[in-house]
């Protein structure tokens, strides 16, 4: 723990407006008390200002995260407000910018972790943001103690006031100036006990609600800068292709078009550290002029090394790959021996397609470059990466790059990549002007970092007592381990197969192997990356085993999970997987959907469960198929994400995850032909509409005293298999290929 040696002190500054600014920042000051790192968490060594108390006793709390719809602009400030004992109804939240700075120990982020990925915001904030709130409260109480000449311990706080033992209340605002002169405590401040919570666990609506419903919330695309020109790109449709020739004569005739130039793509095979594809940039006075100019371009493209690639070829490649040995991901016992002694061996293959993220707000970037500094405004999930990309391309030191995050019109993993930031910088350098880079929907669907494609071959050995004795999961896929930016080490099956996922550790013989497929299509994380990717196969197959061995599908899963215990889980979301918590969500879900009740009216019920990023979820659907129409009569989602910070937020994530899961499972696939993505609009990439969706998602959140885990991704992985299992129950058609509707239509 190198951090233990770092010196810290908590700075309390009186800002120009007379507001109290409380934060925690690193410094070389000799008087700095040492704070145990393990108690404060890594981030606190570099936290900046989070709390401001205004003269009217309104408390302003900084929100450090990237708001992509997962609700962190509300939930993270709630953590601070709780320990600060602020009146949540009087709190105003402000989005914080990216907090890179050079501290005494080198580069650091004054706000701690700011990215949005892997469902970690709440777990991170639970450690450090509560402490930040508690320190601010301590200072205010100390100020009151000095004012009243009373021991600190005799004072209490409530809703933005320090309370005297006789009941007299002093608003925080009146303690501001005195608090500014007080040295913060040397030790971490004790945090509240859960029974003292007044904010955590209470439903809170999104703090931006009024701005959103009045059209005043600012997204990346809503950002403008004086002097900025709008840029659009015509990108090469061929994977790793390039520009052979451009005829821009007509484009230059379009009123408002200022410039046209070629932007090179990354060298084929090189890591994706900058932009994604070669193309022609059109720079204009406004968006419409830029789009008209782009339409008038005549470009000859040179197809790259992937000109022959197609989805059909990839499918054939996957089938062929599975004949090989693959790379071992996890092996327990002896699966080959289990096959020999088994009463039966069951096998099935499942296929999952490439997916685009299709955020409602397409990628967008506003950048202003100056000789000694840069300003970026936009919707991000990974501001740290954006800062690096801008620094790489401009040569500017990162502390000279200002990054302001706006709300993002969806993320789903798309904005973990910063190719669009790089592209804007490249265009701005050539144009010599600030650039507002606009992507259209077809740009977005044809140039993405797609969720991997894969073929799963599953086998299970069953003994005479119908016990599952062995389980093999062979996965042939285009992993995320492809042209990784900045040479991050990733295992071969990254984003496709996790060693310790269900049913690892629950069967004596296990054989999990990965078979890498070649594809020129860029890949990236897509909401609950490998979990949406493989839970469909595993949880569908468990259902098939139950059907084949005439066992109840819920009881089979419970039997496999066995008694409640913790198993090691090395992947993200570990270090432990609790079989009892998964059994509990499954059992509750079965009750809620009335699992035992046999449907006789053409309806079928399907169920599935999964563990993702520290959370546990089960889904059940009741469906019927009338003609070729699938109707979803009921949708139940049961979840355990530990202690709930914002119940309205968790409910939103489960409703949204379930609907996203249905929409994606039913309809969505990205396919390739002649080395080009074939989908380019919501017509051929049909994100689900209201009429296709269940009217309601019945969400049940299991009460828990455990540490909270994130909720943004756990709501989706068990959707597709539960839906496919329900369709089987209703129709006896087993859908083993996503998306469901085209496959169902083919099979009926």
């Amino acid at each position, binding site marked *: 723990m190198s951090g233990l040696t770092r010196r810290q002190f908590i700075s309390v500054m009186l800002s120009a407006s007379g507001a109290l600014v409380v934060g925690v920042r690193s410094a070389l000051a000799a008087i700095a008390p040492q704070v145990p790192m393990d108690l404060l968490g890594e981030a606190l060594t570099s936290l900046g200002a989070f709390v401001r108390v205004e003269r009217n006793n309104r408390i302003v709390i900084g929100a450090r995260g990237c708001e992509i719809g997962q609700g962190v602009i509300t939930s993270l400030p709630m953590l601070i407000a709780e320990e600060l004992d602020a009146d949540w109804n009087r709190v105003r939240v402000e989005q914080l910018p990216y907090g890179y700075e050079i501290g005494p120990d080198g580069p650091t982020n004054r706000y701690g972790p700011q990215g949005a990925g892997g469902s970690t915001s709440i777990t991170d904030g639970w450690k450090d943001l509560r402490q930040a709130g508690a320190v601010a409260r301590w200072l205010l109480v100390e100020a009151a103690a000095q004012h009243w000449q009373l021991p600190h311990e005799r004072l209490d706080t409530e809703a933005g006031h320090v309370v005297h033992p006789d009941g007299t209340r002093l608003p925080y605002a009146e303690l501001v100036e005195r608090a500014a002169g007080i040295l913060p405590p040397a030790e971490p401040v004790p945090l509240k006990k859960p029974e003292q919570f007044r904010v955590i666990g209470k439903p809170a609506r*999104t703090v931006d609600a009024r701005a959103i419903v009045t059209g005043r919330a600012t997204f990346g695309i809503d950002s403008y800068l004086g002097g900025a020109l709008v840029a659009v790109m015509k990108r090469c449709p061929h994977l790793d292709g390039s520009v052979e020739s451009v005829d821009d004569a007509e484009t230059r005739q379009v009123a408002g078009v200022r410039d046209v130039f070629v932007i090179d793509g990354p060298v084929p095979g090189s890591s994706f550290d900058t932009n994604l594809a070669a193309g022609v940039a059109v720079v204009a*006075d406004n968006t419409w*002029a830029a789009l008209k100019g782009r339409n008038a371009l005549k470009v000859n493209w040179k197809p790259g090394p992937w000109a022959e690639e197609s989805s059909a070829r990839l499918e054939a490649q996957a089938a062929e790959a599975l004949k090989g040995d693959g790379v071992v991901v996890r092996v327990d016992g002896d699966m080959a021996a289990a096959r020999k002694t088994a009463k039966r061996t069951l096998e099935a293959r499942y296929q999952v397609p490439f997916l685009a993220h299709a*955020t409602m707000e397409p990628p967008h970037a506003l950048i202003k470059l100056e000789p000694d500094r840069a300003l970026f405004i936009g919707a991000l999930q990974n501001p740290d990466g954006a800062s690096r990309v801008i620094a790489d391309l401009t040569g500017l030191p990162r502390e000279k790059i200002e990054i302001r995050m706006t709300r993002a019109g969806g993320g789903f993993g798309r904005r973990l990549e910063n190719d669009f930031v790089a592209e804007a910088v490249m265009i701005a350098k050539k144009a010599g002007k600030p650039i507002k880079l606009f992507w259209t*929907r077809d740009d977005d669907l044809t140039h993405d970092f797609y969720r991997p494609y894969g073929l799963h071959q599953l086998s299970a050995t069953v003994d005479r007592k119908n016990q599952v004795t062995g389980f093999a999961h062979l996965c042939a896929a285009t992993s995320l381990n492809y042209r990784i930016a900045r040479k991050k080490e990733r295992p071969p099956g990254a984003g496709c197969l996790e060693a310790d996922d269900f049913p690892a550790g629950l069967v004596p013989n296990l054989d999990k192997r990965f078979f890498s497929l070649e594809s020129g299509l860029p890949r990236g994380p897509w909401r609950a990356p490998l979990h949406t990717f493989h839970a469909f196969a595993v949880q569908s197959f468990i259902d098939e085993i139950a059907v084949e061995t005439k066992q109840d599908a819920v009881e089979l899963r419970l039997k496999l999970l066995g008694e409640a215990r913790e198993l090691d889980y090395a992947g993200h979301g570990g270090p432990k997987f609790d079989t009892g918590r998964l059994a509990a969500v499954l059992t509750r879900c079965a009750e809620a959907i009335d699992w035992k009740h046999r449907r006789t009216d053409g309806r079928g019920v399907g169920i599935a469960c999964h563990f993702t990023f520290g959370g546990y979820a089960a889904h059940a659907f009741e469906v019927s198929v009338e003609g070729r129409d699938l109707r979803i009569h009921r949708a139940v989602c049961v979840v355990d994400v530990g202690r709930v910070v914002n119940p309205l937020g968790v409910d939103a994530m489960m409703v949204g995850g379930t609907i996203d899961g249905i929409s994606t499972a039913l309809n969505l696939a990205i396919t390739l032909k002649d080395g080009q993505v074939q989908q380019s609009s919501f017509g051929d990439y049909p994100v689900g509409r209201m009429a296709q969706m269940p009217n309601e998602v019945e969400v049940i959140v299991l009460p828990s005293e455990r540490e909270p885990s994130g909720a943004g991704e756990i709501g989706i992985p068990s959707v597709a298999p539960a839906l496919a299992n329900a369709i089987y129950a209703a129709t006896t058609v087993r859908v083993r290929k996503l998306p469901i509707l085209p496959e169902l239509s083919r099979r009926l």
Partner: protein
Amino acid sequence: MPQANAKVDKEAAAAPAAPAPIELTINGETFRHTGAPDMPLLWYLRDVLRLTGSKFGCGVGQCGACTVHVGGKAQRSCLVPMSALSGQAVTTIEGLASGDDLHAVQQAWIEEDVPQCGYCQAGQIMAAVDLLKRKAQPSDADIGQLTNLCRCGTYPRIRKAVKRAAQLMADAKAAEAKAADTKAHAHDGKSGEARS
């Protein structure tokens, strides 16, 4: 914010032979567009007037993120060229509330905590206002006719919010009728008494 438009409009593309100006009303204010007549309303609102509540989602009328009202009816502003708007009255999400008083649909959206990312919600609200004008008490099937896309999956909360808005509007109407009734009977004390 919208203002007398002559100055703001300089930013719009000026065609070589200046086209005839197009005069229209947006949120109750008159504007004169002198730029490209084929510019879709969406880009006039966003790039020229900086009314950015109406969003770009697809540009081809599929997603509804850009929904506004033209002549009181929901339209996808990415598909409506400025040349079609001469003399028309446009309402955008920014013009839906009366001052600080939110429209019932906006109020219901807040009360049901509908938005997740929030990007599509201005369009959803404008579409819902249009639906409620046509169907004061919409059924589930009526609400299912809303074709605006939401990538976050807020549809179930949108359903609840539309129903809540219908109730809020019905309540407001009843209160208005009652107020009018009371006022009418204030001239006739006896009948007022008899009623109570």
